[in-house]
């Protein structure tokens, strides 16, 4: 044991009976001023809506990341080119910049890495780098859009994913009621207040914390009471092949959660109340009362933010 562990044990000993310590509010409001490159973001926005990036020009990023449906897909699984079905419920693009990793299983660290994924996924946009570059370079629209940033040579995949990244960086839903409450601008009503209290007391906060109310750790679906495991799901186990990674996913953000039904990786919860109950049962080991569900629901609704400026 090194000095740190000794120190930690000492600390634990000292704190003895107060085995749970209190810290400042574990949730941070989203910034109201966000930084991104407006020129690139403008290109990114065009790309985001443009089916040019799909093999048969049928779908675009927007097809599965509906910016009016909480930035996610309202279908249980997304449909790719030629009607191919995805294998997981699409996560939201809103505030994705604040996730510590991307994808359900966290296989990408940066947004740029992430953007590369669906473009190349054969069941999603089904493109390859060469095709993407050829299409974009051939497009007068993108030649014009890229002109301010490409001074010589052709537009390459990195520039394209970079532009998408800058657009996604602009997709921040600031000024939710809860953020404004945290900033002391508004008060929560009783139900919302109670919901937030329960959120902390029940232990939801243990995983759903930070600026994104989640999105900063991995957790197993069914920590306390095991959740249905389906072999071959793109969970963390699919990457690490570690037994304890079965049914482990990135803890999703709860921002705009009210807008992004259905819920969970398998879209098993059709509405937020169901989702609250499922989560409480499997991950907290609680069977919570209807009253608690209502107040948690009320609290979660305060996490819905404003539409990002870039979408106006």
């Amino acid at each position, binding site marked *: 044991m090194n000095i740190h562990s000794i120190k930690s044990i000492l600390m*634990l000993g000292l704190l003895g009976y107060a085995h749970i310590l*209190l810290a400042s509010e574990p*949730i941070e409001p989203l910034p109201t001023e966000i930084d991104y490159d407006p020129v690139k973001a403008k290109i990114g926005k065009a790309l985001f809506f443009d089916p040019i990036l799909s093999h048969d020009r049928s779908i675009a990023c927007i097809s599965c990341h509906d910016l009016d449906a909480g930035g996610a897909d309202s279908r249980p699984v997304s449909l790719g080119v030629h009607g191919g079905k995805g294998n997981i419920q699409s996560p939201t693009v809103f505030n994705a910049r604040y996730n*510590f990793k991307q994808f359900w299983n966290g296989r990408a660290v940066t947004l740029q890495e992430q953007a590369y994924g669906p473009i190349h996924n054969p069941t999603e946009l089904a493109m390859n780098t060469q095709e993407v570059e050829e299409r974009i370079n051939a497009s007068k629209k993108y030649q014009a859009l890229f002109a301010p940033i490409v001074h010589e040579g052709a537009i390459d995949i990195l520039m394209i994913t970079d532009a998408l990244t800058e657009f996604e960086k602009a997709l921040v839903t600031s000024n939710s009621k809860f953020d404004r409450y945290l900033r002391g601008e508004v008060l929560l009503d009783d139900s919302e207040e109670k919901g937030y209290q329960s959120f902390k007391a029940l*232990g939801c906060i243990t995983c759903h914390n930070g600026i994104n109310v989640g999105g900063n*750790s991995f957790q197993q679906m069914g920590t306390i009471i095991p959740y249905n495991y389906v072999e071959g799901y793109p969970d963390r186990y699919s990457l690490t092949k570690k037994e*304890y990674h079965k049914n482990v996913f990135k803890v999703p953000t709860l921002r705009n959660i009210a807008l992004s039904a259905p819920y969970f990786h398998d879209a098993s919860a059709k509405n937020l109340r169901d989702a609250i109950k499922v989560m409480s049962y499997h991950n907290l080991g609680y069977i919570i009362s209807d009253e608690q569900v209502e107040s948690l629901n009320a609290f979660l609704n305060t996490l819905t933010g404003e539409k990002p400026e870039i979408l106006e």
Partner: protein
Amino acid sequence: MRYRLKTVTALLVGIISLSMLVYYYHIEKDFRKNYKTISTHFNTLQKQQEKISYGVLQSSLFAYYNQDSIAKDRNRIIDGVNTLSQHPLLKEKKHYLPLKKAINQLEKEIKSYVELIEHYLMINAGIKNSMVFLSTHEVKSLEFFDPASESIRTLHDIIDSVMQAKRMLDGSYLKKISRLIKEIENDSYNKEQLDYVTKLLVHIRYLENKYPLYIETFSKIMDSPLRNDLQKTQQQFEFLAEDDLTYLNTLATSLFILILMAILAITILLYRLQKENIKLINVHNKLQFTLQHDALTGLFNRISYEQSVSQLKSPKVLLLNISRFKLINDFYGVDSGDQLLIKVSTLLRNNIQHEVGVCYRISGDEFAIVFEAQSSQSIEMIAHEISELLTNRKYKLTDVEQTISINMAISDTKPLLETADMALKQLKLRPVGNLIHYSKELDVKEKIRSNIEITQILHDALNENRVIPYYQPIIDLKTREIVKYEALVRLKLKDGKILNPIQFLPIAQQTPLYHEITRVMISKTISYFSDKPYRFSINFGMSDLEDDEIINTLRGHFTAYPEVAMRMDIELLESEKLTDLNKVKNFIHELKKMGCGISIDDFGSGYSNFTNLTELRLDSVKIDGSLIKEINHSDEHYKSVRAIMGLINEMEVESIAEFVQDEASAEKLSELGVTHAQGYYFGKPEEFIVDL
């Protein structure tokens, strides 16, 4: 070629050391940059690791813990180690290969460390939540159970053990709970009790299952070798960098030595250069000295003279030469001449202070003393002093002792040397004195000296009747009475100035005009004396007596004035070559018959032909003036005159001394038996004889 090689070598060394310097600067900069970057990476990794482990602690202790920063730090530590492993230094340099391996190892370690953290956070969440559940639900037990019941005690026991385990971070507290759980499970409950117990048991079992893992994970994190490995790897890096540093130091030392050597070389070269320079300056000075000084005497030379004089505002020169130096050279040899010159030079140099005047040897026996501040009078005084200094001594030459006489000229008219030289030539023409001042007048005379001019002047003078006789009295030394007059030729210039024969006669002698002058002199003199009672003499050159016209003129006059012939003497100058001696002899006999006296002029000047003289039956002999002039001062001259007088006495003829300037000379001459005399002392030549 050697110099080119040296230059090229120096240039090469310069380029090499400069390149080395640039190279050193470059790699030193690289080294610093790399060292700083890598060190920073290591420090950052360590800091992040510390932050993460602190975050782990916080997350285990705090009920609400914002995991954002620990999430970020996890990403950062992985990014950090990736960047570090990609550092070009690790690829470029072979000796960093072990470090590269170590860093790759670190990369793996960090990845598993991060996974460990993530796993820990997963378990921690459940543990924390279950703990919260148990602590919040424990109180509720009283709602369902009798506080004294066995079940509630067992439940409390279980919960207590869990709490202890958590507090003490010790899984052994949980050992007994599986038995207790069984007890609880075996108890019988009503529905509400069962419901409550089931809820609790879910969490208790979870804790029982997961807690050992939790402690294991936590301990693994706390005991992670990562921190040590990071330090070790950093030390390894520093150890390897030390090699680079050693190389750098070696390079710096060699550079330092090189530069030191270069400085040394430059110093040596400079010293040598300075030495060479001094040598060159010495050589230059020597050359300069040789250039400016006369090799023989050590006096300044003519070149130096020209340089100095050109820089002076109003220079004056005293030009000095040694009379008959050429004779000394010819007679005693060049060595003796040189000795004399050296002695004269030494005397001049030692006796003329530099501030007063500067001595130069101009050429041969010619010396110049240049003055600037002195007045003409003081220069004249100096000249006299020099004259005394140089002439009143005997110079001991190789075999003989020799006295010298000198001639001096003073001039302040440019060109100094030319004017002074001209004045010297004029001085030589003068019967007395050894100093002359240059003047414009001399200049005119000098011009006259030139043949063409004098010829022209003569021609004009003859045509315009300006060749005239002057008459100088000749006295009997015993009685001191005038016994006759000598007719001396003069040339009257247009402006009335009178020229002495020495100024035109030597030139005239080379032209046919000479005989014309003689004819004019004969006519005018005879005509002048025709009605006067005095005896008189006329000068003839031997060649005159060959000239038919002159012979005829004389005959004519003597026919016209037969009485005059009886009063006339002919002064023969023997200095010329005769072509027809018999003719001359015959004519002299003829003249003697007519009653003319015959005299020899300038006897003792070195041209007398004694054989001729005896045949001529002379009446008188005129002793050369140059001997008479110095008779008072020079023993030698006196002796010469005495010797000549012996000869004259034997010949039984009258003797005439010319150039007698004072009584003392007159008396000396008288003592020697000289019968007659003429000179300024007795009377200057005049155009007309004034009867007393």
